């Protein structure tokens, strides 16, 4: 059974008087524990697709099914719950809160979810250990390198034990070596049966994924 299904997704924008088609009839399915890379040139609709999959945006037409439930039928509260408990987001720009240390940044989603899965300190330490930042627990973001900050962001996305991770250009702000390390970490997550969908314009890294979706002008090619 597919964890995530995108069915005939179309997304139109109005830019001034110009109508822009960001996605055009995009369909695919993602199974549990798969590593998917969405790639393509700038403006091809990669990020728009990721946002729709993560319930941050709505398609103009078409449907997304998460665990066979149509997202368009979900209430605001149900969407909040999907973002809290099923999805883990990793952003290009990390978005760590500067006044919080590593452990506090990682635990931030628990504040919003109320920690229904009873996540314990040991589990958080396990994530930090897995990501190689256990010794940076008490450091503030300004004391970390770019690679470390992205690891913290990944740890934050994992804290609620999500079913899938959506990562938007997670290596864009990193050098090649750090970018590769982050990808290797994402692959390790897949080994732990977590589904990972990553948007990247880096073909070399995209080739490390099990499945590659290439978008061009909003269409899968």
């Amino acid at each position: 059974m597919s964890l995530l299904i995108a069915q005939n997704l179309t997304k139109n924008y109005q830019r001034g008087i110009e109508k822009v088609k960001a996605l055009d009839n995009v369909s695919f399915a993602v199974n549990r524990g798969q590593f998917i890379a969405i790639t393509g040139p700038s403006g091809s609709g990669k990020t728009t697709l990721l946002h729709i999959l993560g319930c941050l945006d709505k398609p103009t037409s078409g449907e997304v099914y998460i665990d066979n439930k149509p997202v368009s039928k979900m209430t605001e509260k149900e969407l909040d719950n999907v973002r809290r408990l099923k999805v883990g987001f990793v952003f290009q720009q990390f978005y760590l809160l500067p006044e919080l240390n590593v452990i506090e940044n990682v635990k931030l989603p628990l504040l919003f979810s109320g920690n229904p899965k009873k996540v314990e300190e040991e589990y958080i330490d396990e994530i930090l250990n897995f990501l190689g930042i256990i010794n940076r627990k008490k450091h503030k973001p300004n004391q970390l390198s770019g690679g470390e900050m992205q690891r913290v962001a990944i740890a934050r996305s994992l804290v609620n034990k999500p079913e899938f991770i959506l990562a938007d250009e997670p290596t864009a702000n990193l050098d090649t070596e750090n970018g590769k390390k982050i990808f290797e970490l994402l692959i390790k997550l897949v080994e732990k049966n977590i589904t990972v969908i990553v948007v990247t314009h880096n073909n070399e890294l995209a080739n490390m994924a099990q499945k590659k979706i290439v978008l061009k002008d909003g269409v899968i090619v």
Partner: protein
Amino acid sequence: MTFRELALKSLYRHKIRNFLSLLGILSSVAVLYAILSFNKSFTNNLNDELNKTGVHFMVVSAGCPHEVASLVLHGAVIPKFLQPEIKNKLEEKLEGKYDILSPMLVFQIPNIQKQRIDLIYGLEMDNIKHLKPWWKISGKIPQNNNEVLLGYEIADHDKIKIGDKYRIKDEKDYIVTGIIEKTSSKDDAFIYVPLSEAQLISGQKNGITAVGVKLKKSEALNETIDILSREIPGIQIVTINQILTSISTLASGARVLSLSVVAIAILISTIGILNVILMTVFERTQELGMMRAIGASKTDIFRIIIEESIILTTTGGFLGIVFALLLSKVIEKFIKSFMPYVPQGDLVVFDPLLGFFCFIFAILLGIIAGFYPAFRATKISPIQAIKG
């Protein structure tokens, strides 16, 4: 981590900006507490003071403005004198019905040597303990016509001690037999002399400006006033209740003015908080968008922002109350400077109920100031925020 801890840490990001906003609320709540405490104590202390005098009513000359007549007990200078025979008529009409019948003469006289105006309060010295029972006097009350009792301010200003001499009208030296301890009221500025001597100094033989009367039976007050008003022409009677009302009315103008100033200060500081929180929301658009993306509901976002606002106002409010109490004497002196009459005693004091009210008020301010920025924050679209 809790929402409050998160809000606190976020506030810490812009320490100086938030500290300045906090100072605004601190000052406003401090003034609010001080004024409310002052107003409450003013009424209570005035009541106490008038009740302690033991006088039921004052008799003054007819035609004297009511407000001035009300202040005669507290040293108001009345330009109109009662006719000399009035005292005798009062004694005659009230024979056997009064405990105290205390004539008094209050007037100003130039003190050329010290380049100022001396305020003279003449009264029968035996009546002092009835009229001003709260006074604490160092030394003793004058018994002879060459003796005076000085208010604290006069003695302190001129560095006069008991036994020293005080010259009135550049003519005669009086022995200072007593000095009144500080009352923080107009009483501090007077020179108290025996009535007959005051009449000599003023050149008004038998002149009196008012007579204070305490009846044996207070229930006979209305009836007595009716009789006196009818049978003694040329007098005006002001009861203690009327004095209380008149003084309160006199003070109400200043109180309304001060409360208006507080209201404006509160409005400005609330707008200041609103502005700071709104600025924070705009600056943190991406961050708040990220929170929405990782699962924060609109209510969560609203809560974070409103908590920041409430933390600012409650901290400012609490410190404001502490500040008002610490600086109570300075604040009191400042407010007294524009009040026509202030009763004796501490006026800005610790009052748990008032403190609680001010604290709740500060929380309300936080909610009011934070509501719009918090509402705006909930409208942030996570996609737009993340896209920047």
